[in-house]
């Protein structure tokens, strides 16, 4: 192998490369746009929603979409579907973000440490295997049933259920990075394990961590909807897309609208994260960036 002595690449080009690749990928742009819509809807739900999510209008149940005052219609109790979808999206994002934080906060350190020390790896990896032996949802349902309902508990249950995958991804990257020459060079400078993990391994593992987070996020959003649908997640009267689906189920053949809109919202959230995550992975992939 020979290495050429070509001209150096200007700084701005390297910095803008990841972003540039993302923008040039139509799927990534589509994902980004969907994500932006979802985030705006969730963050500004209190401003955008015409009614409080739990406000009932017993005089006007089962309104069709397009009714004056109720843009997406109302449900069996006359609650405004638009307001509930907005607040439900907000709750979904909250649960998703919290569980991602949880999985990152526990999974990343465990992955780094188990990738670095083999004796610890034996313990952590077997535990991760044990958790992975249960389907993600069974695990989350079990944890949620033990912890009880509520937004925070749902987030913790989903977060814990996602820790093993995060550990695996980070561990694999740590195994790769600890054999690189720059880590070897750091050893000869007598850099300790903490310095090597914190300053060399973690920054270089960030791309895979970010990508894994975009994979966990939609799974957690979907998981929250399922837990809430089963009555193990967010509890009424707090709004949640899962609860809306569960409520709409009884009247599905009379008016499908209360079930269709939260379904669309869920699909858009997951599609946004998945498309964006895929594009981000391609953009960050070192194999295609040389």
């Amino acid at each position, binding site marked *: 192998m020979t*290495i050429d002595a070509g001209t*150096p690449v200007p700084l701005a080009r390297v910095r803008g490369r990841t972003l540039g690749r993302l923008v040039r990928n139509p799927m990534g742009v589509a994902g980004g746009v969907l994500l932006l819509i979802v985030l705006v809807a969730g963050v500004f739900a209190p401003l955008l929603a015409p009614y409080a999510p739990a406000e009932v209008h017993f005089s006007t149940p089962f309104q069709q979409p397009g009714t004056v005052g109720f843009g997406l219609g109302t449900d069996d109790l006359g609650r405004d579907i638009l307001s509930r979808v907005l607040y439900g999206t907000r709750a979904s994002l909250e649960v998703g973000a919290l569980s991602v934080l949880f999985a990152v906060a526990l999974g990343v350190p465990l992955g780094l440490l188990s990738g670095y020390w083999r004796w610890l790896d034996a313990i952590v990896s077997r535990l991760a295997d044990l958790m992975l032996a249960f389907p993600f949802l069974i695990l989350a349902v079990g944890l949620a049933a033990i912890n009880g309902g509520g937004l925070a508990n749902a987030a913790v249950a989903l977060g814990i259920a996602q820790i093993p995958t995060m550990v695996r991804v980070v561990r694999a990257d740590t195994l790769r990075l600890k054999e690189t020459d720059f880590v070897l060079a750091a050893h*000869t400078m007598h850099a300790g394990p903490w310095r090597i993990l914190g300053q060399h391994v973690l920054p270089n593992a960030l791309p895979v961590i970010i990508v894994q987070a975009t994979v966990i996020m939609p799974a957690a959003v979907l998981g929250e909807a399922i837990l809430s649908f089963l009555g193990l997640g967010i509890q009424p009267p707090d709004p949640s897309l899962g609860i809306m689906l569960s409520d709409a189920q009884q009247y599905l053949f009379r008016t499908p609208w209360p079930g269709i809109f939260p379904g669309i919202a869920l699909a858009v959230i997951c599609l946004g994260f998945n498309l964006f995550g895929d594009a981000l992975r391609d953009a960050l992939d070192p194999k295609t960036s040389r």
Partner: protein
Amino acid sequence: MTEPLLEINDLEVSFGDTPAVRGVSLSVAPGERVAVVGQSGSGKSTTAHAVMGLLPGSGRVTGGTIRWRGEDITHAGENRLRRLRGREVGLVPQDPMSNLNPVSRVGRQVAETLLAHRICGRREAWARAVELLGQAGLTEPARRARQYPHEFSGGMRQRVLIAIGLACRPDLLIADEPTSALDVTVQRQILDHLDGLTRELGTALLLVTHDLGLAAERADRVVVMSEGEIVETGAAKQVLTAPREEYTQRLVAAAPSLKTPSRRPVSSSDVVLEVEHVSKEYRLRGQRGRGGVLRAVDDVSFTVERGRTTAIVGESGSGKTTTARMVLGLVPATDGRIRLDGAELAGLHGARLRAARQTMQPVFQDPYASLDPMWTVERIVTEPLRTFGVGDRGSRRVKVAELLDQVALPAALAQRYPNELSGGQRQRVAIARALALGPRLVVCDEAVSALDVLVQDQILGLLSELQRELGLSYLFISHDLAVVRSLAHHVLVMKDGRVVEQGPVDEVLTAPSDPYTRQLLDAVPGATAFAG
């Protein structure tokens, strides 16, 4: 003059909008051997690939013509090209490790070429394949043909690739860096064999290589390329001994030769590093009970004196890198003593190891891998200062400028990231990092092997300059005898974990007493050409 076999006229090749080859013209007569020489990125491989219609990705021919026996094949269709490849033009690719199908028997892969061109039937093809493998220099070809690539060494795989390239008796064989992944002695065997075979069959050879010495030794005519253009062409001997163009002159001058360089003798002779009877054993897995043991390094002793360079030379698997890693304290020695400045190094822990490491720093082979891509040059160079808690933020910044100046890099580079630097610049950064703590010993593990000749020459110059100025001692690990010759004072030749010969460089490399050293020396391409 006979009609040329291959005639390239004003060839232009672009990748997307980036031109890679500009106005290249060359011809190959029947039976002639032509070498295309250039550094990486010079367009030499691209030219070869254009002939075969094998341009990767967005590459396409944008101008000029390629004529094969007078027929224009510049924009020939896939059908014509398929008949051309293999049957009329054979290819020996560069990397023997990735160019064979790992799940298919070797003989089958040779026979496949014959079957694809419908030269003979299945049974006959197998017999021919066995015969070809034998011709390519494999012993017991009948048995070998039934084996899989992973059972073959690098040199043997390259022989298989040569057998495939010559299977249909092409008129022209294109060899794209056929031996750059191999050790010198293997390289010599392979090239000798390739020479013999092509001469016997009357096949013309287009040899693509980065090694000027190799080109001069193996070709009738040499074409020197740089940045997509032909710089100089001429008879091999003439290009090498009396280059006309300035670029070629620089290339020839930069090629490390086996001639004795004028080296100022260093008077001092106190010992910095002392290695005594060091061994390293690895336990092999999967053998219960008795347990197999691999002696990677076996009873190695040497010293490095102050202000001098001790080099360890050997082919891959000789244990030279393991020795360097034991000295650096990265791998514990199984047996023996390593003393740095009189202090025992093996078995050191904590503060004492820390102190020892301060006086000894490494420079690794691959400048792309040895610098953290997420860090700026400044952060990389000051890393040893920070881990050892030397100075504060302000004094470190001053030190960075000083260190960059020492390795002849502009101070403005301090805020750049490694991927914005060239290979040579990166290796300079790695050297600056090694110098940060003011070490007495620098361990260079193949520090110039990954660099192009011109850059390699500059880095070697820098290293010897730093040695003079700072009184540094080097432990220099290399597979390249010529590089060792130009830098080292003392040399060890290693083979299979043992030292076969050691002594002053002039003695060992001019009058070797061990047959293996002699074999290594003879194998250096262009040795005779340069010496003559």
